[in-house]
């Protein structure tokens, strides 16, 4: 038994500092972006230490639910992919209202009382290189020309796919019928956004719904794909940050969230290929995008997922 205790102490000693300036971050943001932002943070707030748990949105949801069952959420800050998942947490009373003046630099449509946008993810189309004809609009995905040839990410796995579901379900001219038509046209639901790009690059399917930055990254490496800004526009999803009500270190958590919308962090975010939420940070990589009123979808999240499951199974 002494072994166990000694081993336990040894391990506890290795699990990192737990000083008052240590916070835990739950995030679904891509690793390179988290790393870039933490790198910038180290220069401005060297005293702040951030433990990161990075996982897809669906896995974060499960983790937070499990922690609620046994003694409360263990993290201080949430940095999510989409406003719908984050709003669900706000509705459950898990988030602490944000009060910092620093957040007013973010345009009002990209924040709420409980969370603030940090970057914009543009949902776009990705097509295999040389595909003809190329789809030009979202509605083209339901066209017989792309029968059995469309790849979609899973809304229960990826926050961006969940946002797409939220947008289409409530947008005039689409609705859940859009997904029924996609299914009828043989569209295949994969898991992550990365799976969509992989399958389209490999030619397993020739078109898919994806994210601008992920497509650009694959293009830069030389994947045989094309980035398409669909008509009437890409779906711009803002990626919110929030502070958990159960945070044991709300001051440090607030420092971190304030930092996320600072010019330094926004420049780091832009440097990894995501559109910054601040318009005063240089950015020239986006095409036409739709302004989405996410607030009108709030409250219907579970219902949307249930309806989606009826169509795409699982």
């Amino acid at each position, binding site marked *: *038994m002494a072994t166990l205790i000694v*081993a336990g102490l040894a*391990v506890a000693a290795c699990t*990192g500092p737990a000083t008052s300036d240590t916070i835990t971050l739950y995030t679904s943001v891509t690793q390179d972006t988290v790393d870039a932002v933490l790198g910038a943070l180290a220069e401005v707030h060297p005293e702040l230490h951030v433990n990161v748990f990075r996982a897809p949105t669906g896995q974060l949801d*499960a983790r937070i*639910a499990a922690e609620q069952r046994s003694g409360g959420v263990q993290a201080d800050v949430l940095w999510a992919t989409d406003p719908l998942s984050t709003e669900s947490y706000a509705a459950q009373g898990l988030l602490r209202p944000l009060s910092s003046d620093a957040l007013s630099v973010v345009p009002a449509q990209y924040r709420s009382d409980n969370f603030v946008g940090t970057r914009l993810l543009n949902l776009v189309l990705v097509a295999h290189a040389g595909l003809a004809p190329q789809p030009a609009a979202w509605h083209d995905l339901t066209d017989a020309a792309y029968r059995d040839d469309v790849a979609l990410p899973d809304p229960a796995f990826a926050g961006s796919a969940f946002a797409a579901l939220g947008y289409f379900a409530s947008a005039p001219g689409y609705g859940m019928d859009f997904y029924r038509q996609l299914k009828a046209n043989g569209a295949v639901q*994969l898991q992550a956004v*990365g*799976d969509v790009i992989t399958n389209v690059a490999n030619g397993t399917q020739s078109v898919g719904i994806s994210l601008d930055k992920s497509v650009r990254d694959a293009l830069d490496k030389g994947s045989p794909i094309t980035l398409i800004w669909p008509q009437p526009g890409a779906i711009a999803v803002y990626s919110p940050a929030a502070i958990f009500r159960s945070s044991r270190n709300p001051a440090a958590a607030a420092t971190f969230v304030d930092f996320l919308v600072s010019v330094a962090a926004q420049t780091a975010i832009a440097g990894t290929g995501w559109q910054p939420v601040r318009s005063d940070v240089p950015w020239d990589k986006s095409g036409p995008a739709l302004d989405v009123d996410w607030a009108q979808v709030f409250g219907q999240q579970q219902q949307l997922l249930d309806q989606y499951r009826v169509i795409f199974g699982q």
Partner: protein
Amino acid sequence: MSNRPALGGLALAVGLLVLVPLAALVGTALDIGAADLAAGLGSTGGPVLNTVVTGVAGTLVAVVAGSAFAVLTERVDFAGRRLLRVMMLVGLIVPGYVSGIAWLNAYGPAGISDRALGVQLPGLQGPLGISLVLGAEAAPLVFLLVAAGLATRAEPDLERAARASGASAWTAFRTISLPLLAPVIGGATAIAFVLSVTAFGAPAVLGIPAGFGTMTTRIYRDLSFAADPLAFGRAITLAVLLAVAASVVAALAGWLLAPARARRSGVPGGPSAVAVPRMGSGRLATAVVAALAWALVLLAVIVPLVALVLTALTRAVGLPPTPDNWTLANFNTVLDTHAWAAFGNSLVLGALAAGGAVLLAVLGLVAVRGRARGVAAALVGLSFAIPGSTLAAAVLIAYGPLLRDTLVIILVAYLAKFWVLAFRPLSAALEALAADFGRAARASGADALTAARTIILPLLWPSLAASAVLVFMFALHELTMSSLLYGPTSATLAVVVLNLQQLGDPTQTAALAVLVTLLVALVSLPLAGRLGAFASARWRG
């Protein structure tokens, strides 16, 4: 020398590592209540059926291939026999999730067979692929058990006698050795089944993205990917069900493989020094069989590993893995600070698990002697049969509130699962030594402690070291429990590979998978000669 303190320590360790978590799990199941559990069970029909189907199919593949290879390498003479044996054992080194990823790169969409020949393995991401990879994973163990059975239980003397009396090699084998081997093959079948139904790596990699769930991946999804309370109850139900099924089958395996089950002819003497005449040396049929065997190894082991390396070297997804597209950039990208941190976690966990498991095993050997040791070994063996998914869920419930997200909680699960790996070989080694040498030392006037210190320990030392390395290797392999227990600072290498794979970047996933496999291979080098013996010792008394 009193054993009482050791016995107390052992009881405490087993209690904390195994009994407390399992009691917590059962308690939770009772809390949830029969009605809700039944509801949970109702919605788990799919995963249960899928597990049975892939488990049975995988077992079939493993038993047929493993036994055939054992007979081939032990009883048939052909060139390259030794190398074939070594290739079989490569399967023990490659972790299951890496095999799954490697098969995808070899036979999946845009895999090398697709690119080179336009051929894909249909259903690779589904029951067929999972069964094949599970079979390939369990085959080496069946191979080892049956090969060992051929060497000891099949009584070469009898076979030789039959040959001398005019029976053909095949007739002698069929009528003499095969019946004697039946219990071994039966036991190996049960073990292959336990391994297949409790496997997580291959079903996770090949099944989850395709929406094909087995019990272990369903437990993972329900505990790690589902937010609704019903999912938790379902996971508990599945965890209990899986543990019961695995324990029953594992107990059956233990019974079939027990030394007492060996049917003896009464011919005195152990394994003969004179080799059994091998079948059909130099004949065409032999050449054909050998070629078939090599083709199988090529397809199941070599091609997937080559495909994995090629994918890891490819610059971007969607490009053919030809030299002009090669780069080392993927290795650079995946070896970021997180991978290094996970690498550190895996090494720390592996070292502590190895040290802890060996100490616990020694404690067990000191505490329990004689006939009781057999009982202890059986109990320890059963605890190894408890599926990783169940153990992790149990440990999470019991120690989560206190140790959630720490390396300690992962270590607890590793120790509970792996100390049998150290116990069995050490127990066997000690039994072989203690009687003669210990008695001689005592007869020469040494007290028990001196005898242990000066005679037993030095002779046991290689076994201690080898057991530690074996546990270290299994800890580096481990994915099932780590994936359920890790937190912000405690991800292991295997977890990082799984997460990368789930995000859908095949080139980076392959790069990290190659590095992990190289690491495991490096660690297992010291075991090279004994790997087979130790792996099969897991299951034999």
